[in-house]
């Protein structure tokens, strides 16, 4: 157990010792490193000597010797450095015996190589090295001889330029500029070499020393170019391709790794540019400096170094503008260091001297930025920081206030340029305030800044600065002024800022309110107080807070009545309500401002009156629009308007709008009440005619024809331009109720009143149709005769027919000719009528013709027959429901009559024998043919009923099977209206139709009510509309009943036939029944053959 204790303790002790802190090992001292190098080079020397001993007679022996000499030279250099360090680098001139010994040893070895191996390629290198050692030993004469020997004996060696450079430098150092120039020029002339740039650079200095700046500048520029070209050829700063030259240079220790030269680490491109600045400042204008440097400098460091040199040079030369541009550039680009403060000082001084305020804002920013960077450095002491801040606060304030003073003086400056400078000054002040927030001069600077901002039109920021200053100012009077200025600027700002500047507007409004309220605490002059209060109120208006705005504006108006602020406030109040579409409020407030004790003056009251009137018009429109909506039942507000503004244009407008609303709601009763009220109270209203026309249309839609007729008359009176049309419409209504005389009067009046040919013609056509229907030829001729001159085909055709009936063939021919003439534009119906009339005229001639017993007479008779037949056929082809069957019926009649005449004829006496027989035979054939035609024509006429569902009077005549001896083209005469249907239900249904005139169910129920009440005429019209609006067989059947009972036999039969066509059994039965009632028993039976049994129920005739 005890045996284990000792080793364990020993182990712990060892561990403990391991855990103690190790001594930190730093880099060896420089001297120690040199001593190590000396040892190493000594070892190399020993090794080389051993190699030489073993290489006797070898080709490479000269190289070993040269290497030995170089190693000794290297050792000498280390000894020198050790001595230099030991002397604490006090002096470069040292007494070091081993250095001299080693160098002289080296020279001996080099000389031995030259003597023993005269053809060695190492000879230039050896000579160069000897020259080098001689120079370091201070044996300059020997050095000159050796290097000149090198240049002489080996002009093409890569070491020759190097040697020339050493020689040139030697003479330059001696002050022998001409001699040194010779050597440098030799290098330059030898082509592009490693040291060409350097040689040119040295030449540049030669010229500087000769005070020839022009040449110096040129040399420096060439040096930059040569150096750049050489490096470019070498593809970069290191010589990538190791050629013979490189090897020689390397051998001479002139090129090391990375290609830096032994001749000091001179960056010719940089040094030449920096040194060129000395002469540039004298030779070139300052304006070109930045451009020149940017072009010549190959990197930022070079650019900055050159700029620094140039700035310093301009400062010496007192070239303020040059200093400005260079220091600005330095402050922009140069790295942060204490030099920048100097640059800033330089810039300050230069600007002040040059009085160049054009970029004062940017300049102050540069200066303050430089200062801030410096004072924020960790190493800057508090004392230094305070001093620096104090110094630069004064500089920048001085600059920017001088700039402002200069601006204020310079009244002649162009506006644009002046604004640019002012903006720059504002930026300068802003930079100042940013850099020195606690400056004692802050108030003055803020006020100055606000003034400048105001001048440049940046009124928002001007206001903000005035407000900021006012928070700092102690003097009440001054503070009041600043606050007032801020309010004024904010007001201006609000008038300039657009909708896009939303944020700015919000800021300005809030700031204005704050400044305004602070200002109001002062005993302000009344005009200022008014202005401020209005401005505050207006901010609420601007931001759409209208209720608050109205409060404030009202206060302004009532506190300062009849002032311009009160006027503005009142306008804004009214406008606020207008924007809110609160017309009631607008009306109420407007009236208040127009009443006694109002703050508005008389002029304003006049304006308010107009505004209120316009508002009421808009209110009326709004009310009317909502009354027309689905919640439009409540027209209370409109009624209020009508009463309140009775007798005024607004009252009239309200009435019209209420009328429109009633129409939209389909409230017929209200519509008529309002319409009548309008016509009575506003008879000269421009809307009157339209209102009446609407009422009439509504009356028609609700089958209130009596009212419609009255309204038509009213409308015709109110609006003569539409009188013709209205009278025609009235005539049509009269016709429907068999009020023939009234209808005729209406049409005749319409013709009389019509001034336009087209309107007259239209009215005349209706008149002609009516007279034809009445079947009174004398009246027709009396009425239509004077209208011949219109040339209307409807008039002429009917007039012609009347003449035919009266046997006035010539007049008939003239009238009908007008229809059938080539130039006439006639309807198919008119053409049919005219063709028929012509045939009728021929029939008169034919039937009165006395056939004599001679061939010519018979021939003429037959020709006349053919022409007549052709006339009827032409009429029949027109497809008229009246004249087609009439023409066929009359053709049948004429054929029959002529066949009877021909039957009684025989061959004339002068025709004998076989001719006579043939003649008689021909006549017999003709008779037979005519009889056949008569039968077929009558049959075709009757067939119109079944094929075309036409039951006009001529068709009905044919259905009887009788040949018409007179013109069958007659019309049914409507019966007089015997009963007028009236009941609350009828009224209710008509009210429904006011909302929807096409409601089929309503129409059907109404028609039945009328029919039951015996008002067949009205029932006929109701069912006709029902059929028009989609009614089917049942409605057609009802139409048939109503029509038949009203005397419109044709219409009734047609409707029944269509109902039967639609499959309604009752339609078929009613048709048969009606025909039977008309005495057409055979046709009645035929109905059941023509239509199959139908379905459905329906009313029986």
């Amino acid at each position: 157990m005890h045996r284990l204790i000792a080793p364990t303790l020993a182990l712990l002790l060892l561990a403990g010792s391991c855990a103690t802190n190790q001594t930190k090992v730093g880099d060896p001292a420089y001297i120690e490193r040199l001593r190590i190098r000396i040892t190493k080079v000594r070892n190399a020397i020993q090794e080389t000597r051993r190699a030489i001993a073993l290489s006797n007679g070898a080709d490479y022996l000269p190289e070993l010797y040269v290497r030995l000499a170089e190693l000794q030279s290297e050792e000498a250099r280390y000894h020198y450095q050790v001595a230099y360090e030991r002397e604490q680098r006090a002096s470069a001139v040292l007494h070091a015996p081993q250095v001299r010994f080693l160098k002289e040893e080296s020279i001996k070895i080099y000389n031995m190589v030259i003597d023993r191996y005269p053809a060695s390629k190492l000879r230039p290198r050896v000579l160069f090295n000897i020259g080098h050692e001689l120079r370091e030993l201070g044996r300059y004469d020997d050095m000159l001889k050796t290097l000149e020997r090198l240049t002489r004996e080996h002009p093409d060696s890569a070491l020759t330029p190097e040697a020339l450079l050493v020689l040139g430098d030697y003479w330059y150092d001696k002050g022998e500029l001409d001699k040194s120039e010779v050597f440098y020029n030799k290098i330059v002339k030898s082509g592009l070499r490693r040291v060409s740039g350097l040689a040119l650079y040295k030449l540049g200095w030669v010229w500087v020393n000769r005070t020839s700046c022009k040449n110096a500048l040129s040399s420096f520029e060439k040096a930059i170019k040569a150096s750049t070209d050489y490096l470019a050829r070498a593809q970069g700063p290191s010589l990538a391709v190791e050629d013979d030259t490189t090897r020689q240079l390397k051998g001479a220790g002139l090129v090391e790794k990375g290609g830096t030269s032994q001749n000091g680490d001179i960056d010719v491109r940089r040094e030449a540019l920096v040194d060129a600045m000395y002469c540039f400042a004298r030779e070139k204008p300052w304006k070109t400096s930045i451009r020149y440097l940017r072009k010549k400098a190959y990197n930022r460091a070079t650019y900055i170094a050159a700029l620094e040199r140039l700035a310093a040079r301009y400062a010496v030369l007192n070239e303020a503008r040059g200093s400005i541009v260079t220091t600005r550039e330095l402050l922009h680009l140069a790295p942060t260091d204490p030099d920048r403060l100097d640059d800033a000082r330089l810039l300050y001084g230069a600007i002040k001297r040059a009085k160049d305020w054009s970029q004062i804002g940017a300049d102050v920013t540069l200066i303050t930025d430089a200062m801030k960077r410096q004072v924020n450095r960790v190493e800057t002491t508090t004392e230094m920081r305070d001093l620096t801040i104090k110094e630069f606060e004064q500089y920048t304030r001085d600059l920017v206030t001088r700039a402002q003073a200069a601006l204020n003086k310079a009244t002649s400056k162009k506006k644009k340029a002046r604004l640019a400078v002012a903006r720059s000054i504002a930026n300068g002040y802003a930079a100042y305030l940013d850099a020195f927030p606690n400056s004692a001069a802050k108030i003055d600077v803020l006020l100055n800044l606000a003034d400048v901002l105001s001048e440049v039109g940046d009124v928002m920021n001007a206001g903000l600065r005035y407000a900021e200053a006012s928070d700092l100012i102690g003097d009440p009077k001054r503070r009041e002024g600043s606050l007032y200025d801020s309010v004024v600027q904010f007001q201006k700002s609000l008038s300039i800022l657009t909708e896009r500047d939303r944020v700015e507007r919000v800021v300005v409004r809030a700031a204005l309110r704050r400044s305004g309220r602070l200002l109001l605490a002062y005993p302000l002059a009344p005009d200022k107080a008014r202005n401020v209060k209005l401005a505050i109120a207006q901010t609420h208006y601007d931001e759409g807070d209208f209720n608050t705005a109205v409060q404030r504006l009202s206060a302004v108006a009532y506190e300062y009545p009849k002032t311009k602020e009160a006027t503005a406030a009142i306008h804004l109040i009214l406008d606020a309500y207008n924007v809110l579409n609160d017309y009631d409020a607008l009306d109420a407030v407007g009236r208040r401002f127009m009443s006694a004790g109002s703050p508005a003056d008389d002029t304003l009251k006049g304006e308010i009156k107009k505004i209120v009137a316009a508002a009421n018009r808009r209110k009326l429109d709004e009310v009317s629009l909502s009354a027309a909506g689905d919640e439009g039942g409540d027209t209370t507000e409109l009624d209020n308007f009508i009463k309140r503004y009775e007798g005024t244009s607004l009252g009239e407008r309200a009435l019209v709008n209420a009328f429109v609303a009633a129409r939209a709601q389909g409230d017929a009763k209200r519509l008529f009440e309002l319409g009548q009220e309008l016509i009575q109270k506003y008879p000269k209203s421009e809307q009157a005619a339209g209102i009446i026309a609407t009422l009439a249309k509504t009356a028609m839609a609700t089958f209130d024809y009596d009212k419609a007729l009255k309204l038509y008359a009213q409308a015709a009176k109110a609006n003569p331009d539409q009188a013709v049309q209205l009278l025609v419409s009235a005539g049509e209504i009269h016709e429907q109720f068999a009020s023939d005389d009234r209808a005729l009067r209406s049409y005749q009046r319409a013709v009389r009143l019509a001034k336009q040919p087209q309107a007259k013609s239209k009215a005349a056509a209706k008149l002609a149709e009516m007279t034809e229907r009445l079947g009174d030829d004398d009246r027709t001729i009396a009425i239509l005769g004077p209208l011949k001159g219109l040339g209307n085909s409807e008039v002429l055709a009917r007039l012609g027919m009347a003449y035919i009936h009266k046997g006035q063939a010539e007049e008939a021919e003239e009238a009908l000719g007008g229809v059938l003439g080539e130039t006439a534009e006639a309807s198919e119906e008119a053409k049919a009528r005219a063709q028929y009339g012509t045939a009728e005229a021929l029939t008169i001639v034919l039937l009165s013709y006395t056939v004599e017993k001679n061939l010519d007479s018979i021939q003429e008779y037959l020709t006349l027959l053919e022409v007549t037949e052709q006339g009827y056929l032409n009429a029949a082809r027109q497809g008229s429901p009246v004249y087609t069957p009439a023409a066929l019926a009359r053709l049948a009649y004429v054929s029959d009559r002529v066949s009877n005449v021909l039957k009684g004829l025989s061959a004339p006496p002068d025709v004998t024998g076989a001719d006579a027989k043939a003649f008689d035979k021909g006549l017999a054939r003709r008779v037979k043919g005519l009889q056949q035609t008569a039968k077929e024509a009558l049959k075709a006429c009757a067939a119109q009923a079944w094929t075309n569902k036409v039951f006009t009077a001529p068709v009905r005549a044919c259905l009887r099977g009788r040949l018409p001896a007179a013109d069958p083209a007659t019309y049914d005469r409507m019966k007089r209206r015997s009963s007028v249907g009236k009941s609350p239900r009828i009224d209710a249904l008509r009210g429904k139709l006011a909302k929807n005139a096409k409601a089929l169910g309503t129409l059907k129920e109404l028609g039945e009510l009328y029919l039951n009440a015996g008002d067949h005429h009205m029932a006929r019209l109701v069912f006709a509309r029902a059929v028009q609006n989609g009614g089917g067989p049942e409605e057609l059947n009802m139409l048939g009943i109503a029509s038949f009972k009203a005397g419109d036999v044709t219409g009734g039969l047609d409707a029944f036939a269509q109902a039967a066509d639609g499959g309604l059994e009752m339609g078929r039965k009613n048709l048969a029944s009606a025909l039977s009632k008309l005495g057409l028993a055979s046709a009645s039976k035929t109905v059941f053959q023509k239509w199959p049994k139908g379905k459905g129920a329906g009313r029986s005739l």
Partner: protein
Amino acid sequence: MIQPRALAVWLLAFLVTGCGGVSLLSIYDGRLPIESQRWIADSEDAVSVASAALQEAQASRRRALKLVQELRGQAKRISDAGGAQAASKMEFMAETRVAYVQLTIRQAEKELDLARAKQLLINATTAMRHDIAVYDLAPLTQSVDRQRQEATDLRRAVLKASLAAHRAAGKAWQVYAGWIRGGGDNKAFWLLEGERKVAPPQQSAKPAPST
């Protein structure tokens, strides 16, 4: 004779909607023709519009009540400054404003009720028209009519309240103007108590050193 199909539809509708309530149709319901879909959509739109109007009215009320609060403060300051009568009229103006604002809210609520009642009626009639469900339309129609009447009454009441508020405002301003003419303090309306004194600066100003 009840058709089996109609009975089934009625039962289904009863079960789906529960207690005879109206089941709202979708505007994308494929069973409905485009016109009926539009009809349904319009009724939905009307509810949305009325709902938005109610929200707007509530927001307006908040703003108005804030203003009324301010108005009462102004009235107090005027009273303190010796304008008791003007202050009293301003108080009254504030009261009428509050009454008006409350009524506008009620009106907006009622318009929403009306829009919803109409929506139910339109859905019910549309469903019946297209044999989707069967409803008793009478109570729905009565509901619409009742809401419509109440909405109309409220509209009139709002108009009346608005005019009353304006009358009160007119009177208040007249009295205020008289008080000002008689030498009343025209700052009382504008400035809060703390703002009436000239505010001291936040920082004492120093004269700028000349350079």
